[in-house]
């Protein structure tokens, strides 16, 4: 939906048609639910930057996901499953990139109203990355992709980050694509 500006050819988007303020909405939501200690999102003034030194057509690319391996017996993890904390994982894991493992996102807060997680390719671009390798756009994929646990402790995230770096180094990657779900 749009609004035409009177006397001009300009057509403006609706006021709400901007990227969602997730931090504000989440904060307000939990305050409304009666929790008085709002979550504090990480924030830094300094941001590291390492230029890509190898042309992508020669580079080995790694993939990191927050999706979780399907766990039989851990409840509904299918499309539009309600938020499922039992399907969470707390250790970094790695699986081959030779085939597409059964990875799900019922353990995170994706938008269950407007999407369904029925297509793994919306949150895990592994097949598209393999196609990019076949097309010569990327030199190679790392032999395995890695899973990054989603939890709310910054200390646990730091430990996980160190482990993920260690595994990426072992894989000999020149660059990494990270896809939160």
């Amino acid at each position, binding site marked *: 939906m749009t609004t035409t500006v009177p006397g001009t050819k300009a057509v403006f988007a609706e006021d709400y*048609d901007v990227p969602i303020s997730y931090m504000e909405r989440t904060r307000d939501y939990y305050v409304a639910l009666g929790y008085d200690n709002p979550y504090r999102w990480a924030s830094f003034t300094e941001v590291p930057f390492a230029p890509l030194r190898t042309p992508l057509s020669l580079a080995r690319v790694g993939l990191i996901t927050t999706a979780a391996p399907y766990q039989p017996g851990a409840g509904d993890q299918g499309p539009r499953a309600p938020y499922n904390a039992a399907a969470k994982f707390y250790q970094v894991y790695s699986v081959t990139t030779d085939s597409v493992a059964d990875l799900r996102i019922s353990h995170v807060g994706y938008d269950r109203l407007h*999407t369904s997680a029925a297509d793994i390719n919306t949150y895990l671009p592994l097949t598209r990355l393999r196609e990019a390798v076949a097309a010569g756009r990327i030199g190679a994929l790392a032999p395995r992709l890695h899973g990054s646990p989603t939890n709310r402790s910054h200390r646990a995230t730091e430990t996980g980050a160190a482990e993920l*770096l260690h595994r990426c180094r072992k894989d000999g990657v020149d660059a990494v694509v990270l896809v*939160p779900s």
Partner: protein
Amino acid sequence: MSLVARHIEAEGIPTVIMGCAKDIVEHCGVPRFLFSDFPLGNSAGRPFDVESQTQTLELALRVLEGAPAARTTVQSPQRWSADASWKRDYNDLSKLTPEKIAERRKEFDVVKSIARAKREAT
């Protein structure tokens, strides 16, 4: 995930994040970010739409190659739908009655205790 990207980048390996939560990723501060203005869960493109997914990945790869400095965000030109009203629904408090709020709080406490038990067992 932003913290992971920062950590890997700081050790010399370039990274790009593909994501849908613009404010959270930019608040943290990451080297490169391909933002899709889609409902959470579609960081890699639209469901059952190979062309959308291919274009999304291609943009992320270009960001990887071409970002001139840290905190580079590129927004995908793809639209989720012509009607943007889906953006109003996320945690929309105006739709919550006091009964619903009590129900949600109860659900959240259950979910938290499941996560805690699982974390402690790991």
